């Protein structure tokens, strides 16, 4: 399906990542946003508040982020594609109902324009320290999809993809921006509506008595949804449930339900995966990065190449699910992985786990507030090639 032209601001724009993200959401068909103001993400909500009444969307500013996330899940079951947007402190509050969205297998998009933490931290300055919270922040076992854009253009393009993936896998997709990308202004080209691929919600159309809101048959796919008001009289709960959506409180039901939540993502990792690589064929060292850090790392890799070092680059566009198989394969071919990130070591731990001692993992930590000095990454590359 192609995008509805009514929401697509076709043309060249000079806008920042936050605004581009809002345009991407509208183009993707999002028509519901519940949010709460928080720096550095507020511009997304502001643009939606201004644009939605002109494209038939519903914007509501809730009383907090707990309510915002709950409203997004409720709205999604009424039918519209739904989203919220926040930053670290709000992301913490959203963890409760993010879990609800995961358990109810509700498609939605949660944008986190990351700033420095913990707590109030650095409201106006950049960070990438919520990556493990994205992966593990809500209680219980689950798998999630997290996307990390590195430019305003990608904030548009990948927000569309985020909505598409959330529909395909009936899972919240976390759009993990950072303050730099959110506030960076660049040229953003929005294509014509008929050039934008949209995954519409897969609505069930069969007999009422045959409908099951969930599918736990082990094939790692998700079933169609219905929406409230269609006459199916569904029951949807955050409790462990069976395929009818009815609560079943025992170990067998838990086994089926939770393994499904995990497997539908993990077993489809290669389908979900978006990765960019360059010069990794002959590389002795691969720099793995994501978000704004990938642009800084590029400079370090170019300098290292110019100095004759065999170094390649891998950019994680989807950070979760983690490309475990790929890193495992590469770890027997390279000496080291260099992992710069604006935190004190989150994704680098995952790389180290997958490398399993076959290749060295060298993290380049940064506590946040600014991007890396490319020379710090270069130093790590030099260490890696030795």
């Amino acid at each position, binding site marked *: 399906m192609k995008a509805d032209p009514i929401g697509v601001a076709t043309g060249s724009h000079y806008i920042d990542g936050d605004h581009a993200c809002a345009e991407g959401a509208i183009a993707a068909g999002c028509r519901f946003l519940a949010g709460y103001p928080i720096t550095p993400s507020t511009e997304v909500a502001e643009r939606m508040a201004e644009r939605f009444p002109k494209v038939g969307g519903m914007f509501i500013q809730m009383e907090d982020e707990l309510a915002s996330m709950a409203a997004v899940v409720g709205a999604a079951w009424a039918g519209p594609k739904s989203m919220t947007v926040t930053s670290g402190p709000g992301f913490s509050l959203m963890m409760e109902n993010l879990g609800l969205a995961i358990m109810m297998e509700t498609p939605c998009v949660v944008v986190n324009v990351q700033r420095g933490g913990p707590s109030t931290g650095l409201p106006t300055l950049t960070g990438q320290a919520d990556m493990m919270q994205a992966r593990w922040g809500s209680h219980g076992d689950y798998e999630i999809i997290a996307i990390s854009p590195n430019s305003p253009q990608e904030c548009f393009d990948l927000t569309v993809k985020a909505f598409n993936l959330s529909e395909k896998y009936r899972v919240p997709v976390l759009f993990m921006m950072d303050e730099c990308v959110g506030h960076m202004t660049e040229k953003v080209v929005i294509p014509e509506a008929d050039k934008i691929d949209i995954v519409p919600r897969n609505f069930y159309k069969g007999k009422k008595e045959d409908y099951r809101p969930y599918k736990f048959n082990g094939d790692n796919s998700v079933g169609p949804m219905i929406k409230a008001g269609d006459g199916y*009289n569904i029951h949807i709960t955050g409790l462990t449930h069976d395929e009818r959506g009815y609560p079943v409180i025992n170990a067998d039901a838990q086994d089926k339900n939770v393994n499904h939540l995990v497997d539908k993502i993990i077993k489809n990792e290669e389908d979900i995966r978006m990765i960019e690589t360059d010069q990794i064929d002959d590389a002795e060292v691969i720099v793995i990065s994501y978000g704004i850090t990938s642009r800084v790392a590029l400079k370090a890799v170019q300098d290292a190449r110019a100095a004759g070092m065999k170094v390649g680059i891998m950019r994680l566009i989807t950070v979760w699910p983690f490309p475990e198989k790929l890193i495992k394969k590469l770890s027997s071919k390279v000496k080291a992985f260099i992992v710069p990130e604006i935190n004190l070591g989150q994704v680098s731990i995952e790389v180290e786990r997958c490398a399993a001692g076959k290749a060295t993992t060298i993290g380049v930590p940064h506590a946040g507030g600014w991007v890396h000095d490319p020379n710090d990454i270069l130093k790590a590359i030099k260490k890696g090639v030795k």
Partner: protein
Amino acid sequence: MSEISAPTTSTLKIPQAPDKLQHPMTDFLRTERLPHIWCSTCGIGTVITAFIAGLQKSGLDRNKVSVVSGIGCSGRAAGYLRLDSFHSTHGRAVPFATGLALGNPELKVVVISGDGDIAAIGGNHFIHAARRNMNLTIICINNFNYAMTGGQAGPTTPEEANASTAPFGAYEFPFNLPYLAESSGAVYVARWTALHIRRTTKSIAEALLKPGFSFIEVVSPCPTLYARRNRLGSGLDLMRFYHNSAKIQHGADTRDIDIDYQKEIVVGKFIDKEKPDFYTNRDQFLSKKLGDKYIPYRGPNGH
């Protein structure tokens, strides 16, 4: 019960006795999930009966009515009703319902939950939904304690009442829920007890047809925990207490209707006023401001 007509929209296949023996509300219950979890003589079942009767009386299309619950004994209400029903997280029934209602303005969204869920952990959501005059009906079953977790004190536990986390009696000042609802902006506010089945039913029917934020508190016996800890007798004894202590006073000033421990309970319809509901207000405001540029939200079938 003679006023309740037999449901006409049945699509159920429930193994059962001949039709003439079928309870007129069976069609509204997920009978395959019965028996329910509630204790004998608990008031929640009574409220569910009143809700189904009120819904039937209202004439609303059941397929356009959704129920949202939070967590707790009353939070299980959604799970037994054969409507589109959602069992959300603790305290978040109201914002979940807000999303559902905004997501499809054709729906009538009802929250059925307990006093802890709505007034403690969900208190902030409750007052903001009332402030917005959000298109929601809230039925709060107030049993004065957290029963699901074993009888802890809550935001409505009267002073002096004993609870497992108030072993020497509660000493905090409890909420007066109708006053909270009215002062936050609700356009319809009533309070009944589980004894007042006909009146609760009537209030529910009225609230369902009222655009905007309507609130009904139903004081309800918890025989297993609240009554036992406080030596108040059985559920039946509590019904006797309601019979003797409830005073119907329509239009009472909500400031004066605090519930003190085992004292008089003022019940009635306190507020029924006109104010634009959220949808209408938003639509009128934005069309005035934006003119032709305004495209109203078309609901889920728009996209």
